[in-house]
């Protein structure tokens, strides 16, 4: 697993070379994706992506423990769905429409979880992770910031 120093170096490299995304995978199957928004310089967003499939050589006990400090939310083992933009958060397609998801909803990477309205344009936000919605962190109609966690998902 990456140590904070290496991580810092990578982020520096990204900024220096104006990269917006970096996807690394080591021979053990550990994968790290770093994303930064070109407009918001110096605000790298980090997603820890679990290894795609159990690989025989991965020491099963140590790997999850090592990734804990980098988990984006305080809730252990949960992944946050974050707002990719500044805007207004909506849980449903219309005022009386059913919410896209509720606590307990199963989502896949492609599931639309909410709409964020920015400058009169509606943006459907995908879960981008598979699992179960554990917590909704924002109220319908609330203003949200870039990178603000909206939902917590239990991967699986």
């Amino acid at each position, binding site marked *: 697993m990456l140590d904070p120093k290496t991580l810092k170096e990578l982020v520096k490299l990204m900024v220096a070379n104006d990269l917006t995304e970096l996807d690394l995978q080591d021979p053990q199957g550990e994968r790290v994706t770093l994303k930064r928004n070109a407009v918001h310089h110096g605000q790298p967003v980090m997603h820890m992506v679990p290894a795609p499939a159990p690989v025989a050589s991965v020491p099963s006990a140590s790997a999850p423990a090592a990734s804990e400090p980098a988990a984006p939310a305080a809730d252990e083992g949960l992944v946050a769905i974050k707002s990719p933009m500044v805007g*207004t958060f*909506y849980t*449903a*397609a*219309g*005022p*009386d*429409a059913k919410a896209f998801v509720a606590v307990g909803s199963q989502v896949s990477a492609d599931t*639309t979880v909410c*709409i964020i*309205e920015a*400058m*009169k*344009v*509606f*943006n*459907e936000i995908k879960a981008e992770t598979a699992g179960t919605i554990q917590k909704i962190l924002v109220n319908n109609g609330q203003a949200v910031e870039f990178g603000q966690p909206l939902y917590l998902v239990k991967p699986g």
Partner: protein
Amino acid sequence: MSGSAIIHAPLLDALLHRTEPIARESLTAAIGLRGMELLQELRRLADAGCVIEEHPQHGLTLLETGLGAWEDYLRWRCPLAAGEQPRRVEVYRTTGSTQDRARALVESLGRAAHGAVIVADEQTAGRGRLGRRWVAPPGKAVTFTMVNIAAPGDGRVSVDHHMFATAVAVARAAEAVTRPSPIDARIKWPNDVMCDGRKLAGILVETFSRSGNNGTPIHAAIIGVGVNVSVEPGDVSDPALRDRLTSLVILGHRVDRLRVLAGCVGHIGAALAASPHAELVAEWKRRCTIPSRRMEWESDGRRIHGHVIDLDPYDGLIVRTDSGATIHLPAATTTVIG
């Protein structure tokens, strides 16, 4: 979901209908905005994503409208009839299908969804007729859905009526935005708008009914339209598809998508409100190309061979089959094989 207007719609309108640059003084004369006021409104347009160029000698040119300006402009340019609520407009950067969104809107708002327009810059699961997919590169086509709810007591809505009225309306809009040298828009039965024998626009009409709040039924038509605005041959990877489609740009007309959208919405509203229908039917028949060759169709699981002898907006194709019988092939269940 949206609050008050963020852009000055008449200013955008003045810029949108110009092909030549316009001086600030002429804009002031046309819409009454002057000095700092004008500058501020131009900045707001830019904030909404509009790309405006200013040449010190010639003046201002709108290169492209921004999605953020579409809702305000459409509500201003295409108001619903007096006495009705303001038109609901939703602009999506990406959505699965504008048809699904429109249906959900009718489910949640009932009659208040009448006239709503759902627009998508990109559709990921766009539908065509008979379950086919509608594919368009993002930013190059106008894809939208308009909701039309029948007045109370009007009974069920007819797919055929909405289909032919919309086809005429889209053909009219395509001609209107390409003036002064308009294209010749034809209709290929049942739901394509063609130019030079290639597809310029496609139409999909779905109808459904639900019970309203006070028990009276709501009959809704969900009208989906896709117009190829700036699609170019290089944007389409499938060679068979490439040969069958055209766009306003291919036809030599660079028109902003917002103009096409507003034109379609305005003309569809007018065509659906038109009565008597006789004129609309006559125009539809004039625009329809009736192939004279022997053709093949599939209708309700049967293969049919014959010649088209006439068209009817409600009954569909009137066909003389090879066996000598005269039959009607309704649009909703018929596929043209070749």
